């Protein structure tokens, strides 16, 4: 291809400088919107913006073309400043067909831009989307800037010299669109060209046609006869120097587990049963065999956790992973792991419930299940990740705590985090502190429930070790020998010991800090998990408005950091925004007897910054 794809100049156009923008690409499941979005993300990351993304898939694998429920969307928020969320509402909406317009137009900011492929607005598609007449022909789009382009036709023209079927040709239209958008924001095409050439290595004609479409879209921008086709410049973000990549929560979590196991000097048995949106963690780890990771797709979730516990019994790090309904199935076995005090990590990529619920939508409604969802008093450690890159950190921390305290750790992620991407300053792997496990080998005075007097962790004695043969199980064990014991006082003692061990984790984790705002004052927003970005941004915006408010983000959900009670007591009001009906708020109220109040949202969608900001405004009014 003779066209130079590397220089993102905007010849002949005056680029307007803006600080940040939110773009949503929307089209049919078959239109390749996720690819368009991730390629745009890649180019934007390489350009040097900070960014956050939100891919939003339909529940159906491949819904019939043109239907509203088959619409797939990808939103990216990027800019010069710190980008915390994928954006409340798009500034720009790119729609590839009427259904995509129908589903998404309601979200577009008033005055925002909508780019429409008019070529897809035929009668049949309009009807499928439920339009009686074309919205392009009435004034329903009046509040917006509409850029009508026959992308379909222009794509076909761009690729007509290639030997493709007409279906194949039309499939290139997402790259035409991408080309145009890359031009519009002055981004480089080189990475996409490279990606296409690699992806379609065995079918170069497909690669070349897509590159041609990409370039044609770009060229269309350059030479656009349309005066209303503005171009923008979103300057690089000022971020710490170093080597970056984009990372999704899933990747970071998988790699974090590996890095943690590496620090613990352990191999991993990762046993799981597929379930949306948790399966990609399994897929990520399945590719890491050479790193000492064995993955096992079990016959169900129960078998998966049991195999993981078996692996931990054998001296490997057992990990299992699922989403809400699958986690529910693991409760009984989790109780066993707690009772026999073996390290285990249970990853829960939460989704919207109850029951099957909205499997592809996000929610953080499994906190109570994590903390309490088993028979009897069976305490464990619960952590949650805040952002895609934080998944890496929390996964390492999960391994550290599981092995140090010989305990199951529940690590909470969610559907939003799992799929969202952000730029990541790649950590220095050699700087991760080592925390090698030490197995018991000495038969002298051995019994399996010998405890470290400080952590109360029991010894880890793995089969294969001469002289340490022992039997464990879910019946109550004698404190002093590990044998079965029905003694009433021993049961009391063991219950207290298990509780004390987990409570003691509070002394092994960093004290809770305030992320933004004063250490005490009128109002604190306490959050956990993937609401981090939205809360953080809202609190910053509130500061800009002169409102005094603090953001406290909890990574440790059970036990809480030792100072949390005192910290929260320093605020007149505590608001707990959660994507559930109010779960953390229940635990905080119960533990600390503070009148914390919930701010809940259960639409299957992340919080908007504005929703939280509004609450801050009204609550700070309350205080004043």
């Amino acid at each position, binding site marked *: 291809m003779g066209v130079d794809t590397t220089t993102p100049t905007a010849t002949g156009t005056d680029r307007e400088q803006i600080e940040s923008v939110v773009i949503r690409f929307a089209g049919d499941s078959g239109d390749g919107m996720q690819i368009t979005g991730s390629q745009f993300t890649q180019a934007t990351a390489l350009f040097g913006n900070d960014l956050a993304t939100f891919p939003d898939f339909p529940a159906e694998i491949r819904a019939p073309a043109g239907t509203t429920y088959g619409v797939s969307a990808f939103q990216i928020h990027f800019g010069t400043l710190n980008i915390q969320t994928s954006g409340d509402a798009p500034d720009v909406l790119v729609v590839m067909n009427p259904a995509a317009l129908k589903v998404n137009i309601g979200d577009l900011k008033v005055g925002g831009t909508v780019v429409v492929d008019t070529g897809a607005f035929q009668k049949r598609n309009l009807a499928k989307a439920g339009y009686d007449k074309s919205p392009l022909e009435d004034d329903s789009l009046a509040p917006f800037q509409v850029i009508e382009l026959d992308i379909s036709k222009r794509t076909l023209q761009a690729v007509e010299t290639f030997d493709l079927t007409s279906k194949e040709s039309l499939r290139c239209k997402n790259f035409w669109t991408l080309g145009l958008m890359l031009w519009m924001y002055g981004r480089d095409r080189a990475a996409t060209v490279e990606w296409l050439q690699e992806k379609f290595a065995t079918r170069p004609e497909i690669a070349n046609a897509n590159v041609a479409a990409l370039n044609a879209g770009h060229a269309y921008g350059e030479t656009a006869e349309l005066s209303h086709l503005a171009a923008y410049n979103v300057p690089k973000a000022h971020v710490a120097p170093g080597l970056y990549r984009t990372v999704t929560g899933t990747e970071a979590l998988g790699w974090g587990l590996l890095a943690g196991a590496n620090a613990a000097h352990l191999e991993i048995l990762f046993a799981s049963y597929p379930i949306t949106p948790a399966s990609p963690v399994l897929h990520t780890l399945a590719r890491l065999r050479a*790193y000492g990771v064995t993955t096992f797709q079990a016959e169900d979730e129960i078998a998966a956790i049991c195999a993981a516990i078996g692996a931990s019994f*054998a001296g490997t790090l057992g990990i299992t992973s699922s989403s809400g309904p699958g986690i529910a199935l693991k409760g009984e076995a989790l109780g066993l792991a707690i009772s026999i005090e073996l390290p285990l990590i249970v990853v829960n990529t939460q989704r919207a419930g109850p029951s099957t619920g909205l499997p592809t939508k996000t929610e953080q409604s499994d906190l109570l299940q994590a903390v309490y969802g088993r028979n009897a008093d069976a305490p464990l450690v619960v952590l949650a990740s805040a952002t895609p890159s934080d998944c890496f950190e929390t996964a390492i921390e999960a391994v550290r705590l599981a092995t140090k305290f010989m305990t199951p750790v529940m690590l909470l992620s969610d559907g939003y985090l799992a799929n969202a991407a952000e730029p990541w300053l790649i950590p220095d792997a050699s700087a991760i502190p080592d925390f090698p496990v030490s197995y018991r080998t000495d038969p002298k005075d051995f019994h399996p429930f010998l405890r470290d007097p400080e952590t109360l962790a029991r010894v880890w004695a793995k089969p294969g070790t001469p*002289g340490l043969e022992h039997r464990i199980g879910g019946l109550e064990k004698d404190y002093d020998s590990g044998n079965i014991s029905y003694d009433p006082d021993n049961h009391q003692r063991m219950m207290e010991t298990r509780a004390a061990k987990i409570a003691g984790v509070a002394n092994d984790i960093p004290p809770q800090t305030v992320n933004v705002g004063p250490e005490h004052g009128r109002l604190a927003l306490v959050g956990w998990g993937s609401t981090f970005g939205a809360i953080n941004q809202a609190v910053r915006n509130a500061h800009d408005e002169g409102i005094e408010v603090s953001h406290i983000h909890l990574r440790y959900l059970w036990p809480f950091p030792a100072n949390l009670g005192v910290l929260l007591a320093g605020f007149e009001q505590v608001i707990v925004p959660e994507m559930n009906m109010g779960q953390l708020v229940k635990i905080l109220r119960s533990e600390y007897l503070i009148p914390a109040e919930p701010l809940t949202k259960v639409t299957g969608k992340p919080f908007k910054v504005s929703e939280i900001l509004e609450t801050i405004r009204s609550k700070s009014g309350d205080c004043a």
Partner: protein
Amino acid sequence: MTVATNEKKTAKDFASDQEVRWCPGCGDYAILKCVQRTLADLQVESHNTVFVSGIGCAARFPYYMSTYGFHTIHGRAPAFATGIKTANPELDIWIITGDGDALSIGGNHMIHILRRNVDVQIVLFNNEIYGLTKGQYSPTSRRGTRSPSTPKGSVESPISATNLALGAGGRFVARSIDTSQKHLAQTLMRAHAHRGASFVEVFQNCIVFNDKAFAHFTEKPVAGNNQLHLEHGKPMLFGADNSKGVRIREGSNLALEVVTIGENGITDADILVHDEKNRIMATLIASLEPPEFPVAIGVLYCDPKPTFGDELTQQAEPTTKRSRADIQSLLESGRTWTVAG
């Protein structure tokens, strides 16, 4: 606690210091003794041996062994064992389970460990009853079993443990009897020798809740006529002086019949020869039942194929990437960019 030495181990060396707590007269005692003796005969290392069980009377077994042991939860022993074996293929793993544990709540894990051919020995103590929960009927209980949950008798047809194991793709399927110590020992030896999932059903008498369930073919006076001891390559003879045999009824489309040697000109040559590599034959003889037929005992089927562990090992690269530098390269794989300082 047993420290490995070079001295020859005896059955006693495989007994733990815990008191055995089954009901007096329970068939489990005989199986325990036999397993301990068999391990001594095999001279296995107790520290490399793991007994894994679910929940039930049978499942208390691991506590009585001096090896490693894991008394897990009801029905899930095969899943735990799969994890243990996958984590450490060097370990020699025995699963001890009951008919409820293996075939009721645990049926799914059982069929999948067989299908995957994980290299373990599975010993199912079939007493045709839920012992530990005080006598409810189980999936192997015969129709009409009166039990606390079926005061008028159960209405369900029992499942055949061996037929299910064969149907699930098990590669080693055998049967024995608690009190037939020699036969049981031989069968356990064979199971141990087989690489892959070895499934052994042991008819076990629950003296309290289902006494004499197998008496019609295990008690001395009737055993000869009602047990068919299988040997690979040998004709299926049984009865006093091996006077009877089993053959395919002529023109029958695969049905068996019992014949008497010498009657109607029948000789040993007419008798079906046991081929333990023949899954169909195993399926046929697994269903034989008194009074018409004897119960087939021994190795019904043994046709090894690569184990789950073998295949995993064969497929996988060895773990070569152990260093922090390897982790670093993984994190840096794919597209990256540098922000200058």
